[in-house]
Every structure is written in structure tokens, then in C-alpha cells.
């Protein structure tokens, strides 16, 4: 579907990984969620949700994820961790163009709030940006990242 429509328009991919721990060296990935973003539209209807080793073999999951991302710029919340996990899964490096939404958010807040500490918790970010989403699970967090990225990049404030 995507190959015909808006081939000229640049897509991005929001990803998130849930894992058994928070240490990229030792954690075992449980769920990968990846969602493409095209223009203002988040393609949740064709999102990728993987449970490596559970519903897909690990190697197969790596190939699927790599193909799904296909060189598109990445977007995420706590993106470094997700990328570390994803690169371990695919065994290949992921695109270099990456946007950490908490960093975008921090940049915006620091401009307006100056002295106060910026609350970077995902729940606070969702409330503050008034996003219509519940940041639950890998899919919910990836979607939240996609929405936050759209809001923070589209209105030039």
C-alpha cells in the first residue's frame, strides 16, 4: 500500500521495546512495536508487533523488524534502549537519523519554564501535550512517541 502512495513524502518509524530488564546488555526483549508515520498520519492499522521467541522466531523477528524500518528515520521515547535491543535482534545497525521525543520535549519546556525542572515522565508528557493516547505496553508507548513527535514538530512553537 505504502509503495504507491506518497512515495515522495518522507516516512518515519516510531519504535519501542519492552524487555525483562533495563540493562541493554542482559535484558531479554519481550515485545517490539514499530509504527510508521506518514505526514500527519500514524499508520497504526499496519503497525508491527513482535514477540521474539514467542510468536516469531528470533531471526525471523529480526528480519521483519529490519524490513519494516527499511532505512526510515527513527522516533522513540527512551530510544537508545529500544535501538540497542533492536540492533541486537536484527544483528545489523539501524538508521542513524534518530529523534528522542523526550529530548524534543525538554528543549521546548526549557525555553518556556527556564528554572523549573522539566518533568520528563511519559504520563506527564501525554498530559501536557494533551495527546489522545494511553501510554501502555510497547505499542502504546510507540504510539505515544509518534504522537508526541508529530505535535512537537508540526507547529513550530
Amino acid at each position, binding site marked *: 500500500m505504502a509503495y504507491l502512495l506518497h512515495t515522495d513524502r518522507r516516512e518515519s518509524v516510531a519504535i519501542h521495546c*519492552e524487555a525483562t530488564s533495563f540493562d541493554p546488555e542482559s535484558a531479554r526483549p519481550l515485545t517490539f512495536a514499530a509504527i510508521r508515520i506518514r505526514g500527519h498520519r500514524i499508520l497504526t492499522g499496519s503497525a508491527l508487533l513482535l*514477540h521474539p521467541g514467542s510468536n516469531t522466531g528470533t531471526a525471523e523477528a529480526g528480519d521483519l523488524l529490519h524490513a519494516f524500518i527499511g532505512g526510515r528515520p527513527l522516533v522513540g521515547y527512551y530510544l537508545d534502549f529500544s535501538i540497542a535491543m533492536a540492533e541486537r535482534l536484527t544483528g545489523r545497525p539501524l538508521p542513524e537519523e534518530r529523534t*528522542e521525543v523526550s529530548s524534543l520535549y525538554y528543549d521546548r519546556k526549557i525555553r518556556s519554564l527556564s528554572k523549573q525542572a522539566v518533568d520528563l515522565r511519559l504520563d506527564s508528557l501525554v498530559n501536557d501535550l494533551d495527546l489522545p493516547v494511553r501510554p501502555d505496553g510497547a505499542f502504546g508507548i510507540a504510539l505515544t512517541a509518534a504522537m508526541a513527535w508529530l505535535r512537537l514538530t508540526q507547529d513550530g512553537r
Partner: protein
Amino acid sequence: MPPFPDAPPSCDGACPVQHAMPTASPDFDFGQPPFDLLTDDQRTALAGALDIALYPRDAVLLSREEPTDAMFVVLRGTVQERRGGEVAAVHGPGDRFGLQALYGAAGAGAGGSTARRFVAAEECACHLIPRPALEALAADNPEFGAAIIGDFAQRMRDLAALRSNREMAALTMARIRQAYLHPPLFVDASASLRDAAEAMRQNRASSVLVRGADGAVGILTGTDLRDLVVLDGRPVSEPVGPLARYGLLTLDRDDLLFNALVLMTKHAVRRVVVTENGAIVGLLGQSDLLAVLSNHSQVIGLQVEHAADPADLCRASRSIVELIRTLHATGVKVSFIADLVTELNRRIFRKLFELLAPPDLLANSCLIVMGSEGRGEQLLKTDQDNGLILRDGFDCPYLPRIAADFTRHLVEFGYPPCPGNIMVSNPDWTRPLAGYKDALFNWIHRPDEAAQMNLAIFYDAAPVAGDATLLAEAKDYLLGRLQDNQMFFTQFARPALSFDTPSGLFAALFERRRAEAVDIKKAGIFPIVHGVRALALEKHRAETNTVERIQVLAELGALDRKMATDLVEAFTILSTIRLKARVDLPDDGPEEGAELAVDNLVYPDRLGKLDRDQFKDCLSLVKSFKELIAHHFRLNH
């Protein structure tokens, strides 16, 4: 890089396994009809197929340049549906749109009503139901499918109704700003009734606004004065303050005129107070409101009347194009546009001729327009078809120069020269009455192709300036020379059949070929115009307008009533489609002086479904009319 105070929740191996089918987190509202018709499984399927889009303020969600592959359901915020710059509808949470673009005409381009755009009025979020998912659900659940399609059908009906009602449409789209406002006339609360009456008389106003002591503003109308003084017998020295009515009906200058009409009707008043940024800027009267529709054309009419030189006329002439666009965009009927444009064009021709011609030429000649201009069916600026009839024995030494100037100025105004050179600047069309009579004699008795055409367009001639009796005399001569000669009329009517009209039996073929353009003039309009012309000429009728001719032919019994009614309707629809094909093309307003050239090609696949069906019906009617003409004039023998 900022720190991460909130690490993702870590689990220790016992995490619940997520669903393979992700569910879009912002829950779709399945309580909203028709989605409440879906079963649980169908809801899950729909939830899994949904996309979500977030729009900043002023983003365009959907326009006709960009075909869509999904139906939109608003989740948050409001979306404005704009037609030709005006807000036609507002969609809030739970409302859906885009189906027409998905299946109907608007997405296909030029054929749609007017350019429709969906624009985010504020930050918006929408669910998008991709077309395959929607179709799968409709197939699975016929009730749901019917509801979705029914919704669509209803909108198409609304659209058709909107188009058929020109006054309503013009009013629903127009703003108060477009109407004339009476300047506000204030008096103090301490002023007497007599002072108020005096102020009204001096300012020729029908009401005054009363500035109360506490800052409140009230109104006192002439009717109030009459009631208070004449009926209630109050002394004219009484102060107006306590007598004025407060709680004014106000509207903003940018409000819709339609709202003003509603407000006036509801409160049975004839005026409302208009504000801008909270300050009173004037009064809108009911009659001014109703005048708005014709206001635009009146302005151009005045420009023409007051023109001091051809340059002034040129400006007025250019604004006709804008007028056509405005009228068409607000849904005004094409016959009304034709009347207006014909009238304005003729005024421009008359004024130009009056500016150029010395008084003795004006008194001794008749400027005529022919062809579609003569019939009053001019929608856009088409080729000039004009001529000058001089009184026998009158001679004007400057005539060639005046005639050349006349034609040249009209070209500058945007009326292209006639390819057949039927123009005042051609001596064949600027000659004495006797010369016209000779020409008519030859056209009738030695018919060839050119003679037939000349006769046809001269029969449609209408006087524009000078002495109209000259044209009347020439036409009397024409009708007097006509014998009831079957051969002549057979020859005259034959061109009505010269072009093919696709339709009827060939409907299937037509469907398949619908990407091919149809020349609407040759296939539809010309056969009607010429067939009707031949019938009218046979009956020696003096009318020039096609619709008038049809009506008079029906009265004479020369045309069956049903056929006459259908012909008028088909002629109107075809003219509308022809105009629309042209006017709808450029999306933005024309740059100054931009012209609307006439293009007769219609692409059925670019028409809306509504127009396409009408188009096909019209063509099949034209087909049967041609059969009637062939039979009547024995063209098949």
C-alpha cells in the same frame, strides 16, 4: 540529552503476552451510529485497521487535489468543511467525512460542485478508516454498509438540493460584510422625541440608536415614534432614554447574512445592529440584505453607465468574469447568470458604441449582436458576432475608423474576434438596410453552407444601440421572403444533425469510453439551439432566445408540452455543465484580467455522479429531439 526519570516498566519474566493484533489506544467510539451496528469481532477488526492522524491548526486534511484512501472520523477538535473559501460545515468529535471523496466526485476533480477542502480549525485528531477495511465491514455487515451508503446518498441529495435553490445558496454563503450597512446614527438619552425625529429626517434614517446613561445602547425606530406620539399621545418633548428598546439584536460583520435573515424573521424586525470587534459599525436592513445578490451586478452596471472612456469600460468588463465566478460559486442558476451577463455585455457594447460614434451615426444606425449574444445565452465572453445596419441614404465619412476602433476595443476587453469575421469592422456586416436585404435575399434563395450560417445567426440578432427599428425592418423582410418551401427548411434544419450525440443505445459503450471527452456544444447544445431555431423560423417567430422559442412553439402546438419542458431542462443543465467545466477549473481566484475562455470539452469521468447521470439523460433527450427534427423536416429522405 536529558535524564530518564521514568524508565520503562521492567518485568521479571512473568509479563503478560501482548495481543498479536494491536488496538489503537485512543479508543474508537463504537457507541456512535452506525458503528454501534458492528459485532464485537467486527469492532476488533476495525480497531486493528484504524490509522490515527494528528493535525495542527489550519492543516488541510482533505482537498480535491489529494485523493484519499480513508474515511475520517473526528476524535478531537473541529474540522471545517470549506467550499470556495466559505465554511460550509463544521465537523466535531464523532462526525465523519471523506466518504464522498472516497467514492464520489469531489476526489475526481473538476466535476465536483465547488472545490471542497477540509481544514483543521484547531489542533485535531482523527481516526482514519482505510477503504479496504470499510468495504470489508460493509460486506460482512449489510446493515452497517447500508447505513454508510445511505449517509452518502443523503449527502448527495443535500448537495443537489443546495444547487437547486439559488437564493438560499447565495444567502447561506454570503457575509454581512458584503451588504450595504447604514451608518449608525446616535442620539443621547436626554434627547427629546422631536430631536430623534429631526435626526432621522436630516440623515434620512429610519431609526436612531440611543446612548443610555449607563452605556447601554437602545434603538428607536420610525414605527416606535409613530406609536408613541400618534397612538399613545406622548408629548414630543419627552426624552427618548426611557422609551428606546434596549437589548439590541446584534451580529458581527463577519456573520453569515443568512443568520441575519433568521434573526429578523424570528424577532419580526426589519433591521439588526452590526458590530465589529464589539463596536457598533452600522445597521443592516432587510431590504439591503435581499439586495446583496444583485448588488454585485449593480456595481458593474454603474461602472458601465459612468464610464468616461474605453479604459473605464475595460475595467467594468473585466469584473464580469469575477461576477460569473462568484455567482456560480454561490450556486446561482445558469439561466440567471446568462440573463445577467447578456445584459451587462449589451450595456458595455452600447456604451462603447455611444462613446465612439457621433450623434448622427447613433441616430441613423442600429448596432446588432448575433448568434448566442443575440439569443441572450452568453455565459462567458465568447467570440464577437456583431454588425451595424445603416439607414438607407445615410453616410458617415468616419465609419471605417469607428468600426475598426469598436472591434479593437472589444478585443481589448476580452471578447475574442470572430473567426468568421462577423464583426462591425468587416464592411459585409456594416452596411445599409438595403444591403442587408440584398444579402438576405441571396441567403434564402441561393443557400450554401456560408449562407445558411449567416441566415441562422442573423435570425438570432438583437438590437443593442441606435435605432432598433432598422433591425426590425430587416427581420420583417427576412420573414416576408420565406416561402413555405419545404426544400428551404430541409436545408436550413439539416445542420442540427451534423454532429453525433453519444447516448441511449450506446450507453454501455459510453460507459466504457467515458474517459473520452464529449464536445458538449456539438453533441448537446447546438442540436437543441439549431433545431429549435429551424422550428421557430418555420413559424415566423420573432423571439431570439432558445428557451422563449421553445415555450412559444409549445403554445403554438408545434412542440409537444412534455418535449418542450424536457428540452428547456436539458438545455439548462447542459449549459450549466458547460459553464462549470470551465469555471471550476482554476482553484484560486483569477489574477486581475484573467479570462475564462470557453472550452466545450466535457470529460464525463471527471463529472460528479449527479452531473454524469444528468448529462447522460440530457444527451439521450437530445437524441430523441434530433429524431423529431429529422422526421419533421424530412431530413432522412
